[in-house]
């Protein structure tokens, strides 16, 4: 039975990676078509020199960093604020988790409607505001999950021993929730980096990110430059994850997700 399950899992993983393998392999293909005509690094060179591609990559990274930072701060605050019982807590919880409960296109359209109603020009900044909004919820939900299992006695003990509430927070609570906060931050970065729908609706001219650029390229003829960029990104994220795992020695599954 175990063997059958194991073979099955292997099959699933193979299917999961099939398109990725295709993407990596064809980034080295000498011609822009299905037939393999030879190995080349030409697409990597062209991707590097493609100004629009570089700009899109920069936009994607900036957007992810900014929204991750803001969302982590706001989301952690929201999760902490939801600890005590208070009037209207159910409503508050519903509000904070709403972005997680609706498809991203709903958020995208809602924010587009807001910006248009306010007469705000779309740009990378409007996209950043939009990203922060949905990331806030994911961070809050992640940290909240971590908070739930937490033992509050240490925190209370610190206060009994004379620490200020602020001090108790920084010395006791925050270190305890840090894995959850980091998990949330990582999740926010990833979601932002890969986001398509929200960025598509809320970014303005020159604010195209990589996914948005790929969307228009797929309609008009993708060049393997995109495969090249994606392979590089895959390798980079692989390196990042391996490095962070080595550093933290935290099991992948238990990161408070």
């Amino acid at each position: 039975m175990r063997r059958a399950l194991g073979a099955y899992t292997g099959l699933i993983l193979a299917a999961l990676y099939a398109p990725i393998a295709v993407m990596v392999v064809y980034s080295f293909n000498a011609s822009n078509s299905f037939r393999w005509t030879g190995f080349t690094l030409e697409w990597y060179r062209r991707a590097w020199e493609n100004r629009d591609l570089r700009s899109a990559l920069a936009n994607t990274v900036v957007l992810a960093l900014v929204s991750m930072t803001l969302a982590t701060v706001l989301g952690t605050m929201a999760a902490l604020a939801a600890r005590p019982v208070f009037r209207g807590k159910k409503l508050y919880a519903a509000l904070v988790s709403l972005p997680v409960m609706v498809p991203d296109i709903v958020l995208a359209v809602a924010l587009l409607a807001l910006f248009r109603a306010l007469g705000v020009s779309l740009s990378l900044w409007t996209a950043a505001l939009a990203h922060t909004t949905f990331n806030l919820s994911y961070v809050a939900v992640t940290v909240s999950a971590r908070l739930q299992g937490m033992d509050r006695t240490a925190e209370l003990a610190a206060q009994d021993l004379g620490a200020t509430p602020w001090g108790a927070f920084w010395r006791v609570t925050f270190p305890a929730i840090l894995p959850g906060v980091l998990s949330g931050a990582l999740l926010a970065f990833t979601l932002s980096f890969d986001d398509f729908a929200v960025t598509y609706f809320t970014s303005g001219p020159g604010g195209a990110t990589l996914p948005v650029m790929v969307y228009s390229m797929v309609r008009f003829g993708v060049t393997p430059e995109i495969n090249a960029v994606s392979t590089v990104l895959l390798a980079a994220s692989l390196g990042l994850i391996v490095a962070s795992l080595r550093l933290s020695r935290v099991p992948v599954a238990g990161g408070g997700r």
Partner: protein
Amino acid sequence: MNKRSLSLLLVPAGWLALFLLVPTVVLAVRSLGPEAARTLAEATTWMLLGRSFLIAAVATVLCLGVSYPAALFIAGCSARWRNLLLFLVVLPFWTNLLVRTFALMFVLRPLGILYTEGAVILGLVHSFLPFMILPLYVSIEKVPRRLLEASQDLGASPWRTFWKVTVPLTMPGIAAGCMLVFIPLLGIFALPEFLGGTRVPMVGNQINHYFMRSENPGAGSALTLVLMLLTAAFAGLYYRLRRTEGLV
């Protein structure tokens, strides 16, 4: 509630009020026009919604079916293998969905099934596997071994143990995984467009059409609002049943 908690509360609440509540109100206002009314009155709109729900539901169930055995296997592995396998499952998540979809087109084209409903469902299941496997794994891993052993000691076959012990105990994981997959699937539009062309219209595509291909924000707002209410109600039901103290 002390003052510090209050400020902690108000800042994110303020943000969300501005960027969630106000936009919802704007959408509602925009949905009051004649264009919106006409769109909501048409049968094709509701058939579209129905079809989208059906496709999302089918894809979710298939995703569940495909993922469960894999999650089962991973949960039964040693710690080292577990981490490696989970890592492998999550890694594709780090490539861009649209690029992966385009690569999927490469794979599906020679099979001649591009631009069909099947291709779209295949693509959807494929793209959301990590979202289903992870919560399933977390839930399966929590099932106490002794319960499984006890069941077998009492004479139940592995099959029976699976259906009568494992599955019921992993219901939270199943529910969480299904929500994590079903909800985003309802709004997806780029993937069905690439893999299905016009053959698989979904709500997301139509909303995209109203805002980006045709100048009809009234109808688009109305459709978005309907989608928002339906999914929020659905998710609300799910959270209600879970009965939790925090936000999750």
